[in-house]
C-alpha cells in the first residue's frame, strides 16, 4: 500500500487521479464516461476512494417508506439535493441504469475500501467491481455497510477476496482514513474529482478538458460539458 503515501496531487507525468465514493450519484454517472476515456486513450487512471462526510456540510436526513422522518437540512439544502438527484438520475438513465434516492446517508467506507483492494489486487477488474456495486446499490438492492456483501461483489468481479475482511478492518481502513484526512488540505472536497497537472477539478463536466490535456492540448481548449450518451433501452 506504499502507493497511497505518494502525494495526493498528481504532478506532470503522474497518472490522473480520480476520486469517487460509492454513495455519490454524481460519481455513479461519471463511471462510464471516465472508464470510456481510459479506454479511448489507452491509459489507466489512479482511482481512489473519498468517503464523503455529507452531514458535515449538507445536513442529514433519513427516509422511511419514501417519507422524510428525520432531517437537519434547510429548505435550500433540500432544493439543491433534490435537483442533484434528479439531474444525476436523468443522465444515468441515458446510460441504461436506474437511480433511486437513498433512504439514509450510508457509510460507504467498506465498499470504498473495496476500491483500494481491487486496485491493489487486480486493477484490470476495478471496473467490474464498481459495476457489481454501483448499479445494485442505486437500485437499493445492496447493503454496502455489510463487509460480506462487498466480499461477494469482489468475487463476482473475479477478484479474490481472501483476506478482505481483515484488510477492511486493518491496513485498508488505515489507508482509507489517512486519505480522507488529507483531502481538504489538498483542495479536494467532492466526487468525482479529477487531479492532473496541478489541476483539481470536481465533476465529470471536466472530462473534455482532461481529454484535451492528455492528448497534448490540440487546438482550442474545450469548454466544460456533460458529454451525453444516446439513450439506452432497458435499464439495469
Amino acid at each position, binding site marked *: 500500500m506504499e502507493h497511497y503515501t505518494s502525494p495526493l496531487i498528481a504532478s506532470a507525468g503522474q497518472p490522473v487521479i480520480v476520486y469517487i465514493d460509492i454513495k455519490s450519484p454524481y460519481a455513479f454517472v461519471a463511471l462510464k464516461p471516465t472508464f470510456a476515456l481510459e479506454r479511448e486513450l489507452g491509459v489507466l487512471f489512479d482511482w481512489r476512494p473519498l468517503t464523503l*462526510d455529507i452531514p*458535515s*456540510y449538507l445536513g442529514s436526513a433519513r427516509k422511511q417508506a419514501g417519507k422524510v422522518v428525520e432531517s437537519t437540512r434547510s429548505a*435550500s439544502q433540500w*432544493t*439543491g439535493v433534490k*435537483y442533484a438527484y434528479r*439531474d444525476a438520475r*436523468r443522465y444515468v438513465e441515458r446510460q441504461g441504469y436506474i437511480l433511486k434516492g437513498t433512504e439514509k446517508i450510508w457509510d460507504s467506507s467498506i465498499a470504498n475500501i473495496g476500491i483500494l483492494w481491487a486496485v491493489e489486487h487486480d486493477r484490470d477488474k476495478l471496473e467490474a467491481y464498481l459495476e457489481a456495486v454501483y448499479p445494485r446499490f442505486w437500485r437499493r438492492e445492496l447493503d454496502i455497510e455489510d463487509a460480506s456483501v462487498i466480499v461477494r461483489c469482489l468475487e463476482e468481479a473475479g477478484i479474490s477476496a481472501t483476506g478482505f475482511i481483515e484488510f477492511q478492518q486493518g491496513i485498508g481502513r488505515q489507508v482509507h482514513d489517512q486519505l480522507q484526512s488529507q483531502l*481538504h488540505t489538498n*483542495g*479536494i*472536497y*467532492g466526487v468525482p474529482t479529477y487531479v492532473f497537472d496541478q*489541476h*483539481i*477539478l*470536481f*465533476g465529470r*463536466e471536466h472530462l473534455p*478538458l482532461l481529454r484535451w490535456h492528455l492528448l497534448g492540448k490540440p487546438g482550442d*481548449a474545450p*469548454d*466544460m*460539458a*456533460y*458529454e*451525453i450518451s444516446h439513450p439506452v433501452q432497458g435499464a439495469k
Partner: protein
Amino acid sequence: MMLSLFIDFKSPAAYLAMKPTLNLIASTGLAVTWLPFAAKQPVIPIEKHDETKGETHRRVRAEQRQQMHVLYADLSNTEMHFPTQATSTDLALNVLANLTQDPTAFIARAFSAYWVQEQDLNDPAVVEQLVREVGLPFTAELLLPTAMDACLDQALEKGVFDVPAFVFADKVFIGREHMPWLRELATSFTPQEDAQT
C-alpha cells in the same frame, strides 16, 4: 419551443455561459426569454484555526470553484476579475425584468461592466449609462423592482435555485455543462413541431 434562461450578472457561471449560450441560440435559431434571478454568490470565507468540518468544506469548495472559473476563463480568453466583496446587481436585474425590447445587448454589456470594468450594477447612474450605451431608451421606471416578483415566481415554480438555469421542454438544467443535452433538445424540435406546442 421557447428557452427560458435565468441569469444573474454577478454569477461567474452565468457570465462564462454567455458565449456558449449565444452560440447555441445562433446555431439552432432557438427563441429565448432572458429572466433575472438574484442568486447568492458565496464569498470565499477566511480560513479560521477552529473551523468545523462543514466550514472547511465550504471554504475549500468556494476556493476551488473560483479557481475553476478562472481556469476556464483563461482557456477561452475571457477577461474576468472577481470582486473582493459580495456585491448586489439588483438594479441591473430590475432593468432586465422590465425591458420590453431584445435585452441581449444590454445583458452582454452588463456582464462586461461587472466582470471586466468592475462596475457597480446596483448604482443607478452606472445602470442608466449601460442602458443608453446599447442604444435602448432609458426611463427611471426601468430601475424599479416592479416585474421582479413575477420573475421570481416563475423561477420558483420551475424549480430554479441557481444560475445560469436553462428551462426548456419542461426540463431545468443548471449550468452550461448541460449544453450538449440542450443542443440535442433544441435540434429535435423542428419548426413544425414547435407550431403545435
